[in-house]
């Protein structure tokens, strides 16, 4: 079915810019999005939903490196990961895409929140994060080489300020939709019953 269009419109966006809500969506067409499947199929790797010891250690090392560097620069062996956009205000649907620069030698990237929970592990420098509740959510990125060595880390976290649509608006849309739906079903039912009755009468007369 062609509900595709709506779902695609609802997807987050590639381009950097302001935090996007559905109304300013830049939809991704199915063919374009499908193009990414191959890359993801070859890149996908199951990840723990919580970071493992290696990732935690790497995160600690990165933090130490950053803290010891007043200029906010990472150490010489770890490249800096920069998010294309570091702040997303009023994320209305609780989901958002994060994008960052590619790191030379990196074969996988990891996105962690401030509590160390993993939200993404894959080869592409883009992560789709969904299901967030209201509030501020911070994410940091790490890059690892094929031999599982940390080769990059974000200095500045990406912050999402999730602010879901007001429930009053949600219930209003829901209510209008319900009324239209019930009215339509009622009309079909009334029409079908009426038509059936007329048919029966016509048969009786004939």
């Amino acid at each position, binding site marked *: *079915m*062609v*509900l*595709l*269009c*709506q*779902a*695609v*419109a*609802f*997807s987050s966006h590639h381009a950097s810019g302001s935090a996007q809500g*559905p*109304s300013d969506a830049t*939809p*991704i*067409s*199915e*063919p*374009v*999005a*499908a*193009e*990414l*499947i191959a890359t*993801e*199929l*070859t*890149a*996908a790797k*199951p*990840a*723990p*939903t919580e970071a493992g010891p290696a990732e935690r250690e790497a995160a600690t090392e990165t933090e130490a490196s950053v803290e010891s560097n007043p200029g906010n620069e990472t150490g010489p062996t770890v490249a800096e990961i920069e998010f294309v956009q570091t702040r997303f205000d009023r994320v209305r649907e609780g*989901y958002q*895409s994060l994008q960052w620069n590619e790191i030379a030698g990196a074969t996988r990237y990891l996105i962690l929140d401030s509590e160390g*929970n993993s*939200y*993404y592990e894959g080869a592409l420098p883009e*992560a*789709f994060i*969904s*299901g967030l*509740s209201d509030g501020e959510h911070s994410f940091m990125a790490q890059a690892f080489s094929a031999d599982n060595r940390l080769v990059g880390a974000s200095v500045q976290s990406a912050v999402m300020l999730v602010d*879901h649509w007001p*429930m009053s608006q*949600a*219930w209003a*849309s*829901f209510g209008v*939709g*319900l009324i*239209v739906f019930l*009215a*339509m079903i009622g*009309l*079909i039912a*009334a*029409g*079908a019953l009426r*038509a059936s009755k007329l048919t029966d009468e016509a048969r009786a007369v004939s």
Partner: protein
Amino acid sequence: MQDLFAIPVVATAVLSPTAGYVMLACFSVLWISLGIWWGRRATSYDGFAVAGRNVGLALGTATAVATWITSNTTMLAPQFALQLGVWGAVAYSTASFGLFAFAPMSGRIRQLMPKGYTAVEFVRRRYGSLGSVPFLLISIFYAITWLISMSMAGGKLLEVLSGIPYPVGMSVVVAVCVTYTLFGGMYAVIGTDFIQSLIILVGLIVVAVAVLTRIDIADVHSKLETNRPMLLSVFFPAALMALFNNMLFGFGEIFHSNVWWSRAFAMREGVGPKAYALGGVLWLPVPIVAGFLGLAAPALGIGISQPDTVGPLVAATLLGTGGALLVFVVVFCSLASSIDSLLAATADLIVNDIVEPIAKSTQTGLKPDGGVMSDSAKRRASTIAIIFLGALSWAVAYPNVGTLATVLFFAGPMVGSCIWPIVGGLYFKRPSPLAAGAAMVIGTATGLWAYFAIGWFVASLVGAAVSGVVFGLATWFAPDDFDFSTLADEAT
């Protein structure tokens, strides 16, 4: 539960181009052979366009299911779940309500127009040009953009699943569908739909079973509750707003599209209501099953970059090469079952609602007794229309411009505004041409305005709601007195 870390990396799960070509060749030969075999009875235009109006319950149900399961269903239902949680999967599955609602309408259509061919024909005869002009424009826009976007999706999906170059995959998909539709018309479409629906349903069941045996639902729930709580929330505002909008979009798609009307005409009297209702029942769990893939992805730790890739990605990750193969087959069947239906139904629409009226006005190609085109002339016109549609789709899809599918976004309010004129016009004599035309035009305009001013998630809803109000008021203040018996005869 299954050790998630033990799930194999899917780098090897993508089919090789050789395997892809073999699969493509096998299924192409199969569809064309079956299409020709099933279509051998299409000796008259009635046989070609509406399968002799004698389709039974099994074939009728299968064609409804197969046509409504497109590649979008297998890709977008998981995306909806990943974005909007449980409500997202439910919202997508409400598209089956359109089949349920259309069930009684299909019986009425068949009863009112035993010799009818298209939805536009009904609107033209019911409302005149005031209703049929906007309806024809909406129908053509919807059908052609859907057809082109499906062709593009076919090329892309075959490329990413098997490495077959986009131009080759897209061309083969279009050529195969055009070929067997050309030979067998609606007979071929419905016959192949039967096989395709079986393959799709079995494929999805295998994926569902594989997913359920490899993951622990309680674990999925626990992880989502911790990391992505809104996906499980009953009070997810965006999901609540999207629910009826999507449902009404689905209703609009089915109620207005000749894909569904042509099947109503093709089914034996009394079969349509049962077939559409049963089709809805069979279709209903598909988005739920597919949607579960979207919900399972975070728990499986599968990193998602693009949400509409989540379904194939999870299936391929869990099932390895077999999963990729299954996805390939399901996608090919889904594409073929929708493209062939669109080709046949849109060709009917072109012949009956554009070519024939023009021929009538210029008095060419008419039967000696006047009125309509001869059977052979209509069959020739159908052949040309199918080739034209195939060539158009191929030509537009070939450059692989990825923005075309976005045009379909506008179809939501357009088709949503057709709901009331169709339902009202089918059952009641009071709705007038003015009411129908105004409802479609004003509903479409306000729906499109809502799309840009508010957001996509209210566009279909606004279109349907406003067109309903306009339709009701116009019917109230300027009622008509339509005689339904005039629809029983063949169009003149």
